[in-house]
Structures are given as structure tokens and as C-alpha cells.
């Protein structure tokens, strides 16, 4: 019993590394036959629609509110110590650097990641993936490649949208509830604005897009059993992706700043 408890961390680590190895192997399968990619381009455009376009509303709503909250809370923290136009700077920087990419990614983990995991997982447990393979398609290129590529292309675009609406939300809250004028807000925004900041969020989102879609594809692809296995794949996808997003967020910031 005691030995089991002591061994638990090692077993756990062993399992994590095994799964990570399987994940890497599955992802590299996409690069085995680049000549076939062209056969799967149209599927990729379909996925861009599903992953990208259909996520726009939820991204807009969450980003507007995170902008508004940032605005109100930063004003509250500063109280009367600092000039109010600082709000514009805080909102701008936090939205561009952190909130737009990270909050969008977390929301999209549920919206996109869980959907992909459930979809591919269902295809696995109902033998549809075997059917794809028996029709001599490459299931990795048929299912995983379009989703991962669509994720890497669409997440940056979603984050640009999120940044725009986040700042809009921040501005809106500032002029409505705080005594900040539009002029002051954008004065603050411009004071500490570096063009790189906008770019930084986009880089992050590129990696988030890859992480979320690839984890979801991996989990779905390896789903076992029936409905329960599919549910588990979706849950594990959401949990793992959320953890990976915050970890990656830190690593990318450490490297790029």
C-alpha cells in the first residue's frame, strides 16, 4: 500500500511521457506524405469555417466584457492616485498582451477543443475512422490535418477580433462609468503602445490554436469504448488544453519579452 503511494508519482510521470510520445508520433504522421496535402485542402477550408467563423460571436462577447472589467477594475485600483487616462493604457496593454489571446483560447478550448474531441472520438468508437481508412484515405490527413491547420490559421484572426472588441469594451466602460473622455482613453492607449504588443498576442494565439486542436484530435483519435470514452476524451481535452495554455503563455512571454 505504502509502496503503491510512493510509486504513484513515478507511474504518473511514466504515463504522461508515454502519452506525450504517442501525441508527438501522431502529429508527425501529418508530415509523412506532404504530397497528399493538396487532397485535403478543401476539408481544411470547411474546418476554417467551423473553427473560425462560427467562433466569432462568442469571442466578441467574452472580449467586450473582459475589456470592460479591466477598465473598471484598473480605475478602482488606482483610485485617485493616478490620472484617469492611465486606464486607456492598462486596458490596451492587458487586452493585447494577455486577455485577448488567453481568454479567447480558454473559451475556444470548450467551443472548439471539446467539439473536435467528441466528433473524432465518436468517429473512432463507431468505426468511422476504420471506414475512412478502408476507403484508402489517410485518416490522419483526413481528420487531424484540416483541423490543426485551420486552428493555426483562424486563432490569430479571432484574436485580432478579440483585441479590437476588448479595447472597444474597455473604452465603452471608461466613458460610460468612469470620468474618462474618449480623447484621454486613447491618449493613454497610445502612450505605452508598441506595435510589437499587437503582434505578440497573435504569436501566442498561433501556438494556442495548434495546442488546442492537436490535443483534441489526439484525444478523439485515441478514444476507446463507447459514449463514455468519448465523454472522457472531451473532458481530458479541455483540462489538458487549459493547463497547456497557461503554461505556454508563460513560456512564450519568457522567450519573447
Amino acid at each position, binding site marked *: 500500500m505504502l509502496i503503491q503511494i510512493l510509486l504513484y508519482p513515478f507511474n504518473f510521470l511514466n504515463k504522461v511521457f508515454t502519452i506525450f510520445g504517442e501525441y508527438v508520433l501522431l502529429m508527425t504522421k501529418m508530415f509523412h*506524405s506532404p504530397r497528399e496535402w493538396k487532397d485535403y485542402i478543401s476539408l481544411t477550408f470547411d474546418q476554417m469555417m467551423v473553427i473560425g467563423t462560427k467562433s466569432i460571436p462568442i469571442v466578441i462577447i467574452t472580449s467586450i466584457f473582459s475589456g470592460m472589467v479591466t477598465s473598471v477594475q484598473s480605475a478602482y485600483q488606482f483610485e485617485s492616485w493616478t490620472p484617469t487616462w492611465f486606464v486607456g493604457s492598462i486596458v490596451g496593454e492587458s487586452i493585447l498582451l494577455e486577455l485577448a489571446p488567453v481568454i479567447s483560447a480558454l473559451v475556444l478550448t470548450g467551443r472548439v477543443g471539446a467539439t473536435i474531441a467528441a466528433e473524432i472520438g465518436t468517429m473512432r468508437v463507431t468505426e*468511422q475512422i*476504420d471506414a475512412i481508412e478502408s*476507403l*484508402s484515405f*489517410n485518416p490522419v490527413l483526413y481528420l487531424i490535418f484540416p483541423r490543426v491547420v485551420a486552428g493555426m490559421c483562424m486563432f490569430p484572426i479571432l484574436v485580432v477580433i478579440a483585441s479590437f472588441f476588448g479595447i472597444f469594451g474597455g473604452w465603452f466602460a471608461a466613458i460610460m462609468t468612469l470620468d474618462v473622455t474618449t480623447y484621454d482613453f486613447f491618449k493613454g492607449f497610445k502612450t505605452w503602445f508598441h506595435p510589437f504588443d499587437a503582434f505578440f498576442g497573435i504569436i501566442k494565439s498561433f501556438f494556442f490554436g495548434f495546442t488546442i486542436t492537436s490535443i483534441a484530435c489526439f484525444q478523439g483519435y485515441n478514444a476507446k469504448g463507447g459514449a463514455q470514452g468519448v465523454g472522457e476524451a472531451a473532458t481530458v481535452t479541455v483540462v489538458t488544453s487549459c493547463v497547456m495554455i497557461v503554461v505556454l503563455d508563460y513560456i512564450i512571454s519568457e522567450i519573447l519579452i
Partner: protein
Amino acid sequence: MINVSNIHKTFKDKDVLRGVDFSIQSGECVVVIGKSGSGKSVLLKHLLGLISPDKGSIEIDGLKLDELTYRELQRVRSKIGMVFQSGALFDSMNVYENLKIAIDRLTNLKQNQIDDRIEQCLDEVGMKETKLFMPSELSGGMKKRVGIARAISFKPDYLFYDEPTTGLDPIMSDTINKLIYKFNKKNKITTLVITHSMKTVFEIADRVLMLYDGKIYFNGSVNDIKNSKDIIISSFVNGKEILDLGYEKQ
């Protein structure tokens, strides 16, 4: 011609296949029986290269599956039509698209020829009216028939059926048995059928294999299996538990 020699497969610690040997000649109709969980579906997936054996080899038309590159394996698969146990229709596509994707991929037909082929295949299985239905709108038996239509749509050399009649009413089972028989005899498609149903065996089989305990326990004609005195075989053929049979004999 298919040649399976000495394949072994273990999942975790469960020995599912423990040395399976058999071969299928071109044009033959071979039926594999065996109880639930005996590894019939696993065996079939080996033949498609969807699962690779731990030991042993599978040869289709003289090509050893484990020695092929992925592309070559795909080419072998393109000669095989597979009817999955659950139908395995793509549930994001309607019936028409389910057939179209297979024909598009595996033949060089033009659009109007593809449409004709789809009509013809759906007609064969009596599912013409459901062309625009989604798989979720079909019953189990209808899904199976569409699965058969999809498998024959690209005119394969081989057809594999995983429990084509399980869960169907007797009349529909009979229709499907007749279809299988027809494709085998008229279109000369080499056929492998997995089933629990002795009726299917009696109606279509040229030869019967029985999978038991991870091995081919019986390999012979329909008459041989009918008249077999072996207790394991006769209990399966007559659908009785071994104990019951023993009791009857006394």
C-alpha cells in the same frame, strides 16, 4: 487470394488471436463463425491492415501487408469493400455523399457516371428512396444496407462483411444473405463473411471457418459442419450450451 498464416494478437494481457491460419481462394465465399468476443472483428481488421499482428503474416494477392509502404497498403485496401458491424456511415454526410466519397476516391468516374453508379448501388440494396437521408434518420438495418451499397460502389475484388445480418428481422436478413450470395456468384467478388447466424452459413457459404479460443477450430464445408460430432462445434451450430448437449445425449 488471401493467405493468413499464424497470426497472433494480444490486447493488454488478453490473447485474442493465438495462431490463426487459413486461406481464401479467388471467387470463394468463406464464412467465419465464432461466439461473441472470440476475435472475429479483430481478425477482419487484420485483413484490412487496420490492426497489425504481433506475429504472423497476411498476404493479399501475393503482397505481404506488413512489408508494404503506406501507399501500397492503400492500394491493396482500394480492392477491398468492407461492411462494418455498425455500418460505419459518416454521420456528417447524407446517404448519397457517403457513397460518393468512396466512388470519388477509388474510381475515375465522371460526375454523371458517379450519379448513375450511386442510383444503381442503392437500388441493389433497396434503398433508393433514402438517397438524401442522414445516417441518424436511418434504422440499424437501413444503415447496414447503405454500408453494403458503399462497399460495392467502387466495384472491389473482395468484400468483407462484419455481421451483416445481426440485429435484423428475418426477412431483411434473408434479403441481405441473397445480396451477398448474388455479389459473390454473379459479380465474382471474393467474399468473407463474419456471422453468428447459422442460417447465413447454410445459405451462402462455400466453406466455413470456426474461430474458437484464438484459433481456427474448424475449416470445412457446410455439410461437414452440420454433421460434425465435435461437441464445441455442434453446440454452436445447434445454438445450445455444451452442458445441455451433454444432458441430451445421456
